[in-house]
């Protein structure tokens, strides 16, 4: 395989703009899928065809579950041989106080990447179709600050006393309680030493254990943008993960209460909905189309309610987990027909909280690879690429057509809107239509033009005659008001790994703002590996044909 590598990486950063062209052969998607299915355990870039990888690589772990300690309670059965209670039987019941979760077997987690997630989907004819979707994964080095996202819960069961009064004792030991079967308050004889108290409450906050199982926090942007194989695409990505995000989880409390004051079997429910503040952002345009909302990243439901994320808002993995965390429980006070009444309290605690301070992606000292770094070369598959540009510490809203035009444009100036009528419907091309025919089946000729009259019902939509093509990188640099830090322009530079961006001679990163502090030099020239071939013709959106021209 072949690839370009910056072994020492680039400075840590929190904002970026990335633009490049790529074309993925169908066979490469198939190869990615085959490797995914052949691997017996999780590996890095599992089911992902990489286009760009960078940043630190962490390990995660599976969650091990072991049985908790055992405890016991005494179940005493009473009866009334006369006018008072007497013990009929007594036995000790052993129970487990609940499973304990702990750190289990480790596995490798992904570094940051831009790639294609390969999936199979069921087509209308029930056949499995292989598809690729654009995915952006941004791995931070921060674990954030969680609480109550997950707990080890402990079950505690008190002594149980059951039995029914009879004979002269009947009606002597009345207690009023809610009766589920009758759906009302009832007064019944209750055995001695009631209630039967059952609780399940947190014994240990294991939020760190649960959240860190996939490594430090990350932004997993699994888009709904399909990457069709064998055609050229342009992708323009920008993101900003410098936000200080705060999240609270969902809490629900069901108070079943007790007699009197209860109207039905349904509890009084108190809910606290999930909240989030200050999310991070990502902007993506693919083939000149700006994506937002559910097409950009999956919706986030928390407690059955969709979080009102803005069109370009993204939450980190841990933030989503915390927002979706449901804590709470119920308190109940109910009749058990065997002569006891039960007080149950299940409470997993207050709402989860999570905060992620502004982060920088840990890219320094870590290989930066196109399509992947050397240590991930086994996941590289054949791919054509062109015109890679990357700016650090700036963002770009891809919503704006004028900004997208700094990266790709129609050579003849034809805009997509020019192919639509005033109602937004495709304009039909008369030249593709069948001629209208008379009753004898002969084409009707327009007397003015001498040409057949087109049957527009058979016409095809007017097509863009050109396709969108790369724009001179100077345009983007002018718009961004600075040179890209990384620029791979022209195939001759790709082949030798020559970065013509502002980092072409490398960059010195100081440990602190003090210029006298110790520093690290990061070379700016890529190390090419393997056979990187020139490809022609130049990319255009939707272009399918092409071939390599040398080796």
């Amino acid at each position, binding site marked *: 395989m072949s690839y370009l590598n910056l072994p020492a990486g680039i400075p840590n950063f929190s904002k970026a703009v990335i633009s490049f062209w790529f074309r993925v052969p169908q066979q490469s998607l198939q190869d990615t899928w085959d490797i995914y299915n052949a691997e017996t355990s999780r590996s890095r870039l599992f089911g992902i065809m990489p286009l760009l990888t960078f940043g630190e690589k962490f390990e995660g772990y599976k969650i091990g579950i072991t049985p908790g300690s055992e405890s016991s309670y005494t179940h005493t059965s009473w009866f009334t041989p006369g006018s008072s209670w007497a013990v009929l039987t007594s036995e000790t019941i052993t129970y487990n106080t609940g499973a304990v979760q702990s750190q289990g077997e480790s596995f490798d987690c992904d570094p940051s990447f831009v790639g294609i997630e390969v999936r199979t989907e069921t087509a209308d004819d029930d056949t499995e179709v292989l598809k690729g979707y654009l995915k952006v994964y941004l791995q931070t080095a921060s674990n954030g600050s969680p609480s109550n996202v997950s707990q080890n819960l402990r079950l505690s069961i008190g002594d149980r006393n059951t039995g029914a009064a009879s004979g002269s004792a009947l009606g002597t030991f009345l207690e009023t309680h809610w009766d589920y079967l009758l759906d009302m308050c009832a007064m019944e004889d209750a055995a001695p030493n009631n209630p039967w108290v059952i609780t399940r409450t947190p014994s240990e906050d294991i939020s760190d254990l649960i959240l860190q199982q996939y490594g430090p926090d990350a932004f997993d942007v699994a888009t709904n943008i399909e990457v069709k194989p064998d055609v050229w695409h342009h992708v323009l990505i920008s993101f900003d993960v410098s936000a200080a995000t705060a999240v609270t989880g969902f809490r629900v409390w069901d108070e079943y209460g007790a007699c009197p004051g209860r109207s039905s079997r349904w509890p009084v429910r108190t809910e606290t909905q999930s909240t989030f503040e200050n999310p991070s952002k990502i902007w993506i345009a693919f083939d000149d189309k700006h994506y937002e909302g559910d097409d950009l990243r999956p919706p986030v439901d928390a407690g059955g309610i969709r979080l009102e994320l803005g069109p370009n808002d993204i939450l980190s993995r841990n933030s989503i987990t915390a927002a979706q965390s449901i804590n709470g429980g119920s308190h109940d006070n109910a009749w058990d027909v065997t002569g006891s009444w039960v007080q149950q309290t299940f409470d997993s605690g207050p709402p989860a909280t999570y905060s992620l301070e502004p982060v920088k992606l840990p890219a320094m000292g870590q290989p930066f690879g196109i399509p992947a770094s050397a240590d991930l070369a086994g996941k590289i598959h054949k791919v054509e690429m062109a015109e890679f540009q990357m700016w650090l510490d700036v963002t770009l809203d891809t919503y704006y057509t004028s900004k997208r035009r700094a990266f790709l444009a129609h050579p003849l*100036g034809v805009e997509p809107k020019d192919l639509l009528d005033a109602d937004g419907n495709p304009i039909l091309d008369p030249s593709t239509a069948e001629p209208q025919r008379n009753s004898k089946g002969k084409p009707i000729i327009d007397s003015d033009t001498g040409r057949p009259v087109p049957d527009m019902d058979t016409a095809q939509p007017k097509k863009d005659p050109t396709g969108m093509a790369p724009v001179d990188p100077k345009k983007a640099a002018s718009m961004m008001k600075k040179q890209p830090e990384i620029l791979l322009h022209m195939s001759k530079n790709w082949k030798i790994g020559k970065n013509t961006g502002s980092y072409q001679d490398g960059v010195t990163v100081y440990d602190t703002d003090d210029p006298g502090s110790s520093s690290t030099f990061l070379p700016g020239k890529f190390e090419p590996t393997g056979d990187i071939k020139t490809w022609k013709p130049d990319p255009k959106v939707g272009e399918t044909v092409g071939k390599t021209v040398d080796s």
Partner: protein
Amino acid sequence: MTAPTCPTSRNQVRGPASELTPRARLPAIPTATDLPSLIRTVNIIRDVLRQITINTTINNVWPGLSPPPGRGKSYPTWFLTHIDHSIGFVFNKTRTTDAGSGQRTTDTDKEQRVYIARTDRVEFADGNEGTSDKTNRFIWSYKKNLDSWYGDPVRTSPFQEDFFERIVNVKWKDYLAVEFGDGAGPGGGAGNGGGPSL
């Protein structure tokens, strides 16, 4: 199938908390083998029969919702029955007045927009009356059109000829694209990161 990469985790509590609470059930009726167990069995049968057959009981102290004597209808019990949201954008508008004619015009700049998520209408119904057209309802509404609703398919801004020249007849000195290989050639086979530099 979805090829996962370090998927998002979920915490251990799933579903409504009310589902976590076990409910009382009718007890199994044990077989009697001696006098004590017979007494126990009879008592349990008695309880089960009472649970099944009796539909009233003493001391049902829940008063229920009822108006003071002579007040007629019961108090309404409001249930939220409907919410309308608007999600979309408003664009920046500038109003200008022609000095000569005094005519006022509004220009919309779609390059400047604000994302809006707004509740337009909430509707409550009286749960004491069931739901029908005649149900007593409590409604609050606010309606003001946004400039563009979330999900509108066409939201492109005009091509800016003054900033970006057309790229007709651009001739690069070299081709732009390259192909990265995946196995054949000097780079080596799958799983191998080695290979000579060019």
